[in-house]
């Protein structure tokens, strides 16, 4: 464990955080808002911590092993969470626990809010909220595709498959080039979304904030009613478009840019994702049409938006789906569980894992008859070996177990059963809205403190795909010896 490298990179991260905070600071100046002080304090702390850590550490080597990567990821997230909470707390807008909650919700792209009256907040604070989404999303893409591809073993696969497994040689230069490409895609999408939203009628700041929230599949809105506030079907349609494209593997976009658009049509995971969205939309539309008193067009409009929103794990709300029939709600909950594609900003189990599990099921059925045969699963020309399949199965189990654990803890804290299950699935999957007391028209402010802490863990572990954080709990992880 090379603590110097870790410290140095974390220091850089803190400085980066400070520089990002300049944006809302500028907004605060521009609008003459009282939050200037809060942002000033935050920037000061970031710079201070950053310089301290950089001093302490040294970037002596271009080698970055798995352990350092994990440490940077894990500690980095926690550090940024606390730094990000400072504006809320220093400005007196939220107490510390709520601030931490809101920040984790922002960075993890969940979009669950404890703020009851968004429209009274200063623009700079709202901008900061959306920025946490944007940078959190960017961080996830870079971490999972560029920095630590082996964590997605079975789920994330780098096109061109140059780097498979953990190797410390030549990792940093490759990371840089991929990271730059991903950032470019991310930026282009964000700018496009903001422009389109403005054309649809949003003012500049709203468009920027919501575009950050969309591309990061976060779900924070500047309005308590979320997207229902706008009541604009054209806008909703465009939001759907951007949510869906943000749920695909961003690496796929980079490859498509380099090698041609056919890459996208050939991507099984994305096609499966689209199929899930369309099939569920159809089912929910029919259910709403037959069992709620909604006309066909409205049923379709609500169904497709909510389906796209929840499956992409964004979490925007255009209608109160808590009053929809149970069948639709169960469908939506299942989509929240599955989530988006690997290598996107979306959360959840990930569609590729679902595909692999289902294909593995077929191969087992085959194996029941031929007990000596080895199971084999293919996806887009990549053969998945037994150990990878095992990893996927194990992840599914761990993911579900954590969902159960969070739900049990919430139930023990007094939250009703279905609400607990919904909150658990929703926050692990980085979605946001759930059912009942954390439903689409509510906020998470009503939860007791213990439950809020549980939800924070749920959001964090869900976003970082569980094992990253848990691995750091093993003391062996910190031993200095090389290996």
């Amino acid at each position, binding site marked *: 464990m090379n603590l110097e490298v870790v410290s140095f990179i974390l220091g850089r991260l803190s400085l980066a955080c400070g520089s990002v905070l300049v944006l809302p600071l500028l907004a605060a100046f521009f609008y003459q808002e009282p939050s200037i002080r809060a942002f000033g304090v935050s920037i000061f702390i970031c710079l201070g911590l950053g310089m301290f850590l950089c001093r302490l550490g040294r970037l002596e080597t271009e080698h970055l092993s*798995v352990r350092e990567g994990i440490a940077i990821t894990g500690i980095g997230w926690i550090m940024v969470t606390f730094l990000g909470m400072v504006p809320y707390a220093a400005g007196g807008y939220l107490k510390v626990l709520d601030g931490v909650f809101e920040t984790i919700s922002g960075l993890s792209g969940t979009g669950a809010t404890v703020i009851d009256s968004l429209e009274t907040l200063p623009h700079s604070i709202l901008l900061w909220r959306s920025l946490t989404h944007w940078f959190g999303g960017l961080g996830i893409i870079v971490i999972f595709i560029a920095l630590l591809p082996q964590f997605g073993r079975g789920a994330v696969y780098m096109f061109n498959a140059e780097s498979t497994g953990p190797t410390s040689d030549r990792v940093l230069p490759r990371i840089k080039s991929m990271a730059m490409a991903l950032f470019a895609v991310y930026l282009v999408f964000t700018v496009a979304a903001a422009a389109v939203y403005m054309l649809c009628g949003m003012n500049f700041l709203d468009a920027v904030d919501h575009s950050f929230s969309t591309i990061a599949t976060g779900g924070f809105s500047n309005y308590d009613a979320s997207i229902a506030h706008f009541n604009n079907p054209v806008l909703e349609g465009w939001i759907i478009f951007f949510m869906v494209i943000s749920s695909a593997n961003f690496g796929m976009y980079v490859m498509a840019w380099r090698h041609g658009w056919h890459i996208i049509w050939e991507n099984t995971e994305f096609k499966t994702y689209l199929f899930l969205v369309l099939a569920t939309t159809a089912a929910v539309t029919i259910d709403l049409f037959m069992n709620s008193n909604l006309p066909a067009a409205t049923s379709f409009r609500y169904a497709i938006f909510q389906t796209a929103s929840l499956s992409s794990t964004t979490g925007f709300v255009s209608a109160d789906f808590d009053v929809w029939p149970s*069948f639709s709600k169960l469908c939506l909950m299942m989509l929240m569980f599955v989530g988006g594609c690997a290598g996107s900003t979306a959360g959840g189990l990930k569609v590729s894992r679902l595909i692999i599990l289902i294909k593995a*099921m077929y191969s087992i059925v085959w194996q029941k008859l031929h007990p*000596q045969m080895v*199971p084999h699963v293919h996806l887009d020309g990549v053969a998945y070996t037994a150990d990878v399949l095992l990893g996927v199965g194990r992840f*599914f189990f761990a993911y579900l177990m954590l969902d159960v654990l969070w739900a049990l803890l919430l139930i023990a804290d007094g939250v009703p*059963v*279905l609400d607990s299950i919904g909150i658990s699935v929703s926050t692990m999957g980085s979605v946001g809205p759930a059912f009942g007391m954390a439903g689409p028209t509510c906020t998470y402010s009503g939860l007791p403190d213990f439950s809020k802490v549980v939800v924070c863990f749920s959001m964090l572990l869900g976003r970082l795909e569980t094992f990253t954080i848990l691995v750091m709990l093993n003391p062996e992880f910190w031993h200095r010896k090389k290996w």
Partner: protein
Amino acid sequence: MDLRLVAHFLGKIAFACGIAFLLPFGLAMFYAETSRAAFLLAILACLLFGVLLWRLGQQMTDSLRAREGIAITGIGWLLVTFLGMLPYVFGGYLGVLDGVFESISGFTGTGATVMDALEELPQSILMWRSLTHWLGGLGIIVIFIAVLPQIGYSAVYMYNAEISGPAPERVLPRLKEMAWVLFLMYVLFTSVAAVVYWFCGLDLLSAVNHAFSTIATGGFSTYDANAIHFNNPLIEGWMTFFMVLAGGNFGLYYRVYQRGFAVLGKNTEFKAYIGILLTATLLVMLNLLYNMEYNMTQSLRYASFQVASIATTGFVSADFDRWPSFSKAVLLLLMFTGGCAGSTAGGIKISRIVLLIKMAGANLRQQLHPHAMMDVHMNGMHIGEETLHRAAQFFFVYMMFVAFWALLLMNEGELSMFDAIGLSVTTMGSVGPGFGVAGATCTYSGLSNFTKVVLCLAMLLGRLEMFTFLVMLRPSFWRRSKGW
């Protein structure tokens, strides 16, 4: 696919069913009940099927391949549940769908009933209900401990039976021997249970019926109120003991017989099983103590019974539908985990849960050493990746089916999401009582026909661990050609 071999065995199964009918038939004659004719007709039907199938079939070999084993298991169950429905229908007690439901519920050891007024039924019918439990439980034990491991079917059961790989030759003689020992053990446990219940105050027929239901971890009672009817802590205590016993691995008990009780202490699954039951009891007891007006003794009494019951049988000694949410959530989880592999209980099975948890733990180590071998141990032996993979896949498919049934059940009008999930889990797991509309003190009679059909499928697939039926869906499974 050697269809003649399959037919041969199915014929034997039909005959066995006919013989089984003799017991309730005898009872019906003894008490001069109206159900005599129904049972007679049922016996004739069994004889007819038996003769037909046996004639068509032929046993030419001592070997049993995977295919035939699976086909006999799958079709055998369908055959038996069909024949088992006949007394209910012939006697006019239930319509065909309800009869099939009750029969499947009986044989799969679920214990979900569509009969609203049990105490008005003739003793022979009640006896047949309990007998279906007993026979189904015996069948499950024989299939999963003796048959399937020998044909290399299921990694978890092969591991449990300490069999290293499939060996289709000379399977049948060895199978007969194992099946016989298991049968004796099963009869022994049942007899002891019946005698104990009798001493506790039940009349003879009640004692026998409930003994059948307990050892088969079924859940049918001869009283509408189920175990609430007795309101007797002594009976509940003994029931708890026998339920826990029946939820253990019968193959393990066989090894205890061969090598002594020390084997129990070394068996990871058994220890985990007891551990889970104790922990759950403690959690529920505390939850009840602080949230309901029960005192310490009552909390312990209700908690211990219901925890043991929900994990295996499905007897009800208190209306747990009125318990606080946390307890209900714990009970729901117990429906998932179920009993030990090689028991009559259902669910995912404790050994798989243990494997999955150990796997998740081993993974944390492996994140640091990506090229190291996965090191999972159970019962002192190293577990291969193949077995772990199967356990993980089983878990996934199980969950998928639970979600699938729940989705289909949403079709039912007044079913809330939680109740639907509860129903799905309880029938897949062969438990019995659910929550809400099919709750602890209710029956399944009020559900729609579509729901009943879905639940029948859930009970069948859950009991036979899904893959049996999935495999039979492949056309290549049935091809006549030899040589693979």
